[in-house]
């Protein structure tokens, strides 16, 4: 009887750990998000860009984009809350918009064309994956395996 209870207790404990791990996998996924403020041709139409975009996340300014510029922010979780300060034309009125961008799980780097997003285009139009250019420096990195080490170094 007792062993059954112990077993049950352990099972519950393991399940809780697995559940926490699953939650962490979801809420801890990190993304690097790149914001583009560039013109976009989509299905024959060309979408114009605003003159200036200022992007805030969590009250902090992360990028100020003029036409044709790109900004970057890091984000943890499945979606990104943004506050955009949009100036359509030079000297024109500023307009504040709050948006929540869903981010795909399996992309490390996400490129978002904000002007396209703001004009309610579908996801495939404004969102694409950022593929880092692999810069091979040429020199093969040697693996340094310390021998029967003498614990030199910091602690």
């Amino acid at each position, binding site marked *: 009887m007792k062993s059954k209870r112990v077993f049950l207790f352990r099972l519950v404990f393991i399940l809780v750990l697995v559940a926490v791990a699953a939650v962490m996998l979801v809420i801890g996924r990190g993304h690097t998000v790149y914001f583009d403020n560039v013109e976009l041709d989509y299905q024959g139409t060309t979408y114009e860009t605003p003159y200036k975009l200022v992007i805030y996340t969590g009250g902090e300014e992360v990028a100020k984009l003029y036409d044709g510029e790109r900004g970057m922010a890091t984000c943890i979780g499945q979606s990104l809350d943004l506050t955009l300060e949009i100036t359509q034309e030079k000297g024109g009125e500023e307009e504040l918009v709050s948006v929540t961008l869903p981010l795909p799980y399996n992309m490390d780097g996400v490129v978002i064309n904000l002007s396209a997003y703001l004009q309610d285009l579908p996801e495939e139009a404004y969102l694409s994956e950022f593929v880092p250019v692999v810069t091979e420096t040429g020199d093969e990195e040697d693996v340094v*395996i310390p*021998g*029967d080490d*003498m614990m*030199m170094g910091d602690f």
Partner: protein
Amino acid sequence: MEHSATLDARKSVFAVMLQRFGLPRLIIAGFLLLLFIMAPFVGANLTVQIGNVINRFSWNAVLVLSLVPMIHSGCGLNFGVPLGIVAGLLGGTISIQLGFTGPMSFVMAIVLATPFAVLMGIGYGALLNRIKGGEMMITTYVGLSIISFMCMMWLLLPYSSPTMVYGLSGTGLRPTISLEGFYDKVLAGILPIPLTEDLSIPTGTLVFFALLAFLIWAFLHTKTGTAMTAVGSNPSFARASGINVNKMRLLSVVMSTWLAAIGILVYQQGFGFIQLYTAPNNLTLPTVAAILIGGASINKASIPNVIIGTILFQGIVTMTPTVLNSMIHMDMSEVIRIVVSNGMILYALTRKTEGLR
């Protein structure tokens, strides 16, 4: 009926052999054999390989031999080899500092290392006599302490020979000192048997080792030697028969330390360089693992154990990089070395038959 009986007998003979030889040793020997068989297929020159193994054997054998006296007197595996090595390093560097060159520098290195080895050995032995039962852990840390202490000393001692100190500051010994013009290949160069253009069997070193091994063997068969073995195998019996246990242990420690000092000098003359600072630490584990692979245990060791073990261990160390590299294009030799040497030590430590003293 008869048939099965012989089968049984054969089986038991096999079992006894396995028991005596030990499974890990069998695996290691089999692995080495496999390496030798594979060597020609992957394009490695077998003569060169065997020559390399013999050479490396000649460098290391005396160091491995240095463990024997302490194992015999019951002090266990001497992880404090660095103590003797440090004595040898002091001898070698002082000999060069005093201006000796050529073969004379080797003789003087041995002469100068001796007082250091004896003094350190006496101190070390006295310490080990106070802590019977906990030797191995303490020898490990005594070894590590002396290496790190000497690291400071190599920087601070007033050496001035331009071949050894840093060029710019003029003080502090360099980590690696070339022995060219001093005792480089001084033993190996005696009557070498050439194998290929730049490889030969170091007859002189092998004879030197044989001489030392014979001396140890002879010593172990003298009255003092048997008394030492008695102390190791059964201390209370030894005490009852009037042997001074502490004196025997002290003698064995001094012998081990002195042999280790000679051992490092032999290693250096083969290798061609003196390595200072943390380098001596890298010799401890290979040395201890070698004697264990050769069939020694924590309280039993013989000269054949030394020879077989050094050949097996150095064989694996030299063969794995070449053979595995050309076979699977991966250099796994370092990992294999770590796993084999430490695995062997673990095996020896966990053998139930050798329980507590």
